[in-house]
């Protein structure tokens, strides 16, 4: 599995596309968090990173599909999937290696945003008056959401041998899993009875709960389940394509 992991990481950092995706993610995050007056922390007057944590999931919607789009799609396109399968590796190891590599890249993209934290800390009043624990909790929420999105992206990549289609499917699926259930829950048919349940099927509710800075085992179990489910679906798809 480590072999697959290193190979994927190496490929990612050798390609320009990856750097561009991360670059755009960081630029958007910085613009929304610090520059655009309607969302800027500097104009709000308060020392929090709330705007970053509420916008980051939306930026994820293109960052993560861009990271994951080639995982399997490229192997299919180039035919290298045969090579991979004939190697003495189990499917779980292949999927796991690729998945973890993509998660590592997401972490790599998130790390530079710590600059925001230090910068807010410096201009907080009095200096250092930020809720470090709360922000750590929010980062954990963002990480878990990222893991779930990566699993969705991995699955989308296994569906097709076209990277663009893989990207688009991943965006759509991630969006549906993130916000879709909220929209469904708002339908009048479900009002009052099922809407609470439906909302909790979606990621938004769980992410909001974590982004307050409370780590709840229910949310942890939820995100890990989502990730595992999509990795299982990936395995199913790979098997069907054999």
């Amino acid at each position, binding site marked *: 599995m480590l072999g697959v992991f290193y190979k994927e990481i190496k490929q990612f950092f050798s390609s320009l596309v990856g750097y561009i995706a991360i670059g755009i993610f960081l630029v958007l995050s910085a613009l929304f968090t610090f520059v655009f007056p309607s969302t800027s922390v500097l104009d709000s007057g308060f020392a929090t990173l709330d705007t970053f944590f509420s916008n980051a999931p939306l930026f994820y919607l293109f960052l993560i599909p861009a990271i994951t789009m080639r995982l399997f799609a490229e192997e299919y396109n180039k035919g290298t999937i045969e090579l991979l399968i004939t190697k003495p590796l189990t499917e779980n190891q292949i999927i796991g290696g690729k998945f973890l590599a993509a998660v590592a890249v997401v972490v790599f993209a998130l790390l530079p945003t710590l600059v925001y934290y230090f910068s807010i800390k*410096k*201009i907080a*009043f009095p200096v250092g008056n930020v809720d470090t624990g709360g922000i750590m909790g929010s980062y954990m929420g963002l990480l878990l959401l990222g893991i779930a999105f990566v699993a969705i992206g991995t699955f989308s990549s296994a569906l097709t041998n076209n990277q663009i289609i893989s990207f688009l499917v991943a965006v759509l699926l991630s969006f549906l899993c993130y916000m879709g259930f909220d929209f469904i829950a708002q339908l009048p048919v479900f009002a009052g009875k099922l809407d609470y349940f439906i909302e909790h099927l979606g990621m938004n509710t769980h992410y909001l709960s974590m982004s307050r800075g409370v780590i709840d085992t229910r949310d942890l179990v939820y995100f890990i389940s989502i990730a595992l489910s999509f990795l299982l679906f990936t395995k199913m798809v790979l098997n069907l394509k054999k």
Partner: protein
Amino acid sequence: MKAIKKHINTVIVLVILLVLNIISSKIYKRFDLTEEKRYSISNSTKDFLKNLDDVVTIRVYLTGNLPSGMKELEKSIETTLNEFKAYAGSNLQYTFVDLSKYDKKTQEEEGKILYKKGLTPINLTVVENGEQTQRVIFPGAVISYKGRTISTNLLENKVGADQFDILNNSIVLLEYKFANSIQKLQRTHPPLVAFSTGHGEVTQENLGEAIQELQSKQFAVSTIDLTVGYKIDAMVDVLVIPNPTQKFNEKEKYKIDQYLMRGGKIIWLLDHMAVNMDSLNGKDFFLANARDVNLTDMLFKYGARINDDLILDLQNTRLQIQTGMANNQPQMQWFNWPYFNLMIGNSGNPASRNLAPITGSFTSSIDTIKNKNVQKEILLTSSEYSKALFAPVRVYIGMVKDQLNPAIFQQKNIPTGVYLSGQFESVFDDRAFAGAYAEMTDTIDDLKYIDVSSPNAKMIVVSDGDLITNKKARGKTLPVGYATYGNENKPMVFDNLPFFMNCVEYLLDDNKLINTRSKEIKLRQLDATKVKESKKSIQIQNLLYPLIAILIFAFAYGFIRKRTYAK
């Protein structure tokens, strides 16, 4: 065949995951990472609950067929009450009452009763029997103890707040509301807060919001004219003296003094400088002079002195000034106005902890006086960039156009609010007046002169008389604490009223339950001066540093790769 088997395994794993999720929704643990443990139940509540001496019955009316946001609140209520029960045992009983289960007539009657008890109904769109209908919901609870009942609204429905914030605030405050209500029930009568009159204080009309807030929090509110009568009734639990502008005479001071000696609690809201923004009409400046309402010696004896000065602060709210005319339209512009400072609450005291800033206008500095039986705690201060100017102060409009140089504002955190507690000595100790007055009254038992208070007497002194005044602008009454800060198009309501309510609750709180009153994450301030000075560079740093980091990594990675391949 093998493929199908594999799929069966997948389905089994999926089912296991589903079961795990269902189990985890029943058995779970929460780790509150926030600094002030905003989402956890506190030790003072636990102790308080363990020491209940009779059964507390709680009826919660938020249940049944509800939209999901309300259901979230309902669940949090249940979590909180469950947590409570873990410590109170059989001394706490709670039920959820679904009014919609009753017939129409009973519903209406029950609703009326609940409304009278002080619960605020809200209208919700719900689906019943496949049809959308409007339903009236009471998102609150009625709590009973030893035959007394009290009601509390559990939804913090602030106008304009977004739904997530409303919900979040409501959830955060649940513990406090329940614990506080139970504590109130342990008293035989609702605590009485009296506002003094008779010395040109803020009018009742301009205290409307504060009075309303007190009443909604189950306080009895009254006024007390200090110029009449022999004493302040011992029934008054907290006496508020809101910005008197006329002199107190010795008799009136004696009444206040003896009220304190007999266990009364006082909140002084005093402006020590006679300033009115109207004095600026059509002028460039005016001189602000000290105003003496003849209370200085009294406060001095108790342990605090409000100085004859004005605090100027770089951390301030803004003032709109006409800068010229264009097309017959006045041109208005916003300026920093250092006389309207933003005071910061001391995080060491529960009355001022976790509050957004508090707006002050023309505040003065407060010194504490050495006095070994009285403890002093600073509740409010000016910012790190402030200065106090001694009277008479030239308040001039040109100030706004000056570059406000931080180097000039070198005094840090000047006290503007102080909490005094301990054993106070009477101001009338050794004074002929007390003797003369006492002679008249000594025959009546509860008017006897007392020269020291009990060891746990309390008072709060704030050097802003208008702290809880509803100000007016163009005929409209503004909310308490309403001011413009940062974004010019978004005036905001600062935490003056919550601070005042905290002060009242803190003075009356024997179980330290106010510790559980905490607030949401958003209330940490940025240093407005630093933001203003270095906005551009902060923006550039946050935009570029992450990118530079990535670029450096990319080059380093490429370099190392080349070298490995070159080998």
